[in-house]
């Protein structure tokens, strides 16, 4: 049996993965790149991003300002050397993407347009109408087609990272179409699988975002950094989590509770609906505790009322909001208020990497939302995430290719054996035992306990309960049974494997949150309401063990910006 070999192998084909693939193939001639993705690359979740991409493009802006906004936004948990590198390289990256055909919106003079975004002190967000992520992803994907050095494995699902002598030497992957498990040999592996929003019940994230890559790294001893930081967006649709853009509030929409009150007057009287995302999300919880919210089949919600804006303004300024609500949940904002609630939007944490995207494990790299290069710290600034995919995707691709140039492939024979073992493991675990636990039930229970314990507000007790529940769920997972025992396109099996990843990431997240006894950025502890720089101006690192994860800490890199209070 011949196994495919690649100098650099991407796990994940979204924004970061494709950028890394192109960077790797351009780093040295003859580099052979593989991209494994469980969906066709243009289906990746980058596609859903709406707002824009931040980079310093205008004369009224400068790199230090972008860096400062990012660091302040991160509540000083961002590594400042990383931020400085990021803002510098962001500029070239967005121009590069322009050269690759991204249809950025333009000013009359032909330059790319920039717009204002929450937390940014000047206009520096490039955008392609309200479909920035879509256009970026398709531009990257279509450009990637011209590189003959890039081989794609579409709809292949990585089940494990292969390690030999302490270095990563490839992966095993399920070809979803055939149901066969293969080993793919690689000198460098880059994880670009995105976040893990789907471990929560209400999220803007797509169905595919289950923390796959984070768990893969975690399982081979790589730490997951700052996992406790999860960003909520205050206005998502209950159930589906479809995002109602911040612009709906910017254009004058009201948030109204079940008593018909604009309740934000109690929490952010100065800014009302335009207060920061985290404060708005927390206000919702306060209202919920006072019983001032509506109850629906998908839990509590409040109303985002746009009716007073009138049909004309809604159609002119918020066409996408109306399109989304009408087509995907059947609500017309012109005649009825939109039910909204805070929904999980982004994972600041992820696979621990250095400033180049390299993990502590030799041969393993990560970029994008799956990684934690420590750009976003405790809270990500809006429109930095797409740029992060570009900058650190490119960086990871380059260093991974350089590493590959100096390394040899591992022994293939042993890899064939590993693939066979993996196939056996999966068949035994999912087809062999007649377990009674359904994937959907464990998944629902996991999401519920994450919401209860590791949601917007966290406490010691609730987090402990969540940690315990996750342990129980992991035991139940051992007894899982799936309906589908066939091979071809077995999505039941894929979902079961994904659930395993979700449980691992959830475990790391809950334990990291439990031990961070302070409130910082998105991490709000009701029992420790203040930021505690003395004890917690540091990154958490979660390591998998046989029992509960081990949490270690490492210092934050500070260069030129001293931590100060974060007020807007």
């Amino acid at each position, binding site marked *: 049996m011949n196994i495919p070999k690649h100098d650099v192998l991407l796990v994940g084909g979204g924004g970061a993965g494709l950028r890394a693939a192109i960077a790797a193939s351009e780093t040295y001639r003859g580099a052979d790149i593989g991209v494994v993705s469980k969906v066709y690359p243009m289906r990746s979740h980058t596609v859903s991003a709406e707002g824009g991409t931040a980079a310093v493009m205008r004369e009224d802006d400068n790199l230090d300002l972008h860096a400062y906004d990012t660091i302040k936004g991160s509540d000083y948990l961002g590594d400042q050397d990383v931020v400085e590198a990021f803002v510098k390289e962001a500029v070239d990256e967005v121009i590069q993407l322009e050269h690759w055909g991204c249809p950025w919106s333009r000013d009359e003079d032909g330059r790319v347009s920039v717009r204002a975004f929450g937390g940014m002190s000047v206009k520096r967000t490039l955008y392609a109408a309200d479909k920035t992520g879509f256009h970026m992803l398709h531009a990257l994907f279509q450009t990637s087609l011209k590189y003959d050095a*890039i*081989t*794609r*494995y*579409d*709809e292949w699902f990585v089940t494990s990272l292969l390690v030999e002598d302490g270095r990563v030497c490839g992966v095993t992957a399920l*070809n979803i*179409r*055939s149901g*066969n498990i293969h080993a793919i040999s690689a000198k460098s592996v880059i994880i670009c699988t995105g976040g893990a929003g789907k471990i929560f019940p209400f999220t803007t994230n797509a169905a595919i975002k289950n923390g796959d890559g984070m768990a893969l790294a975690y399982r081979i001893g790589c730490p997951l950094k700052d996992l406790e930081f999860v960003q909520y967006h205050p206005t998502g649709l209950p159930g589906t989590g479809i995002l109602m853009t911040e612009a709906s509030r910017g254009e004058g929409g009201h948030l109204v509770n079940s008593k018909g009150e604009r309740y934000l007057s109690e929490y952010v009287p100065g800014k009302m609906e335009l207060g920061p995302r985290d404060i708005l999300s927390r206000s919702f919880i306060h209202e919920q505790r006072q019983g001032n919210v509506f109850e629906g089949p998908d839990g509590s919600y409040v109303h985002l009322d746009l009716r007073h804006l009138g049909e004309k303004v809604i159609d002119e300024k918020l066409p996408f909001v109306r399109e989304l609500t009408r087509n995907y949940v059947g609500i017309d904002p012109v005649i009825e208020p939109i039910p909204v609630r805070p929904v999980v939007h982004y994972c600041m944490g992820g696979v621990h990497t250095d400033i180049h995207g390299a993990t502590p494990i030799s041969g393993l790299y990560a970029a994008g939302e799956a990684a934690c290069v420590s750009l976003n710290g405790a809270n990500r600034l809006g429109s930095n995430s797409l740029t992060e995919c570009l900058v650190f995707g490119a960086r990871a691709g380059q260093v991974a290719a350089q590493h590959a140039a100096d390394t040899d492939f591992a022994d293939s024979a042993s890899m064939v054996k590993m693939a066979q073992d993996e196939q056996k493991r999966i068949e035994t675990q999912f087809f062999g035992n007649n377990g009674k636990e359904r994937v959907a039930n464990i998944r629902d229970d996991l999401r519920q306990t994450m919401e209860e314990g590791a949601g917007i507000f966290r406490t010691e007790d609730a987090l402990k309960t969540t940690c315990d529940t996750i342990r129980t769920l992991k035991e139940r997972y051992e007894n899982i049974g799936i309906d589908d025992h066939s091979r071809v396109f077995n999505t039941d099996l894929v979902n079961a494997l994904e659930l395993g990843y979700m449980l691992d990431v959830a475990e790391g997240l809950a334990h990291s949150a439990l031990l961070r006894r302070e409130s910082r950025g998105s991490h709000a502890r009701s029992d420790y309401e203040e930021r505690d720089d003395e004890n917690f101006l540091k990154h958490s690192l979660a390591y998998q063990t046989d029992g509960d994860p081990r949490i270690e800490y490492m210092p934050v890199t500070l260069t030129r910006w001293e931590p100060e209070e974060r007020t807007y």
Partner: protein
Amino acid sequence: MMLDSETTKTYTRPISKAWWLRDRGHFNRRYFMFLLRELTSVFVALYVVIFTYEIFLLTKGPDAHAAFQESLRSGPFIVFFVIALLFALYHSWTWLGLTTKMQAAGRGLVKIGTKTLPPIFIALGSYGAWIVATCVIAYLFLTL
């Protein structure tokens, strides 16, 4: 480059020959109207052939011409011309509609400076051309 998937057995549903009428239990009105649209060309062609034949008969003298003119008064011919006219009108309607749409969407086709002409003007243009052509032919036919 993409790695070939390991092939698995697939099933391709055959397309029904009568897809424009019904396919897998469903009728699609737009497919049917499309086929009618294409069918208009047959009636146009048949009319052209008849017209050519009429002109050919002129070479055979006044009697042959008169005899054929007489036969055009018969029921079957009248029915045919009614149907042909309806199809021809449907052709005009769809053809001018599609060209209108295309010019409206087209790049640089109908532009004044950098401004694209509003579609309604293009529509007025093409349907207007039809009215003008029709009137001119009728006028010339009646007066020459």
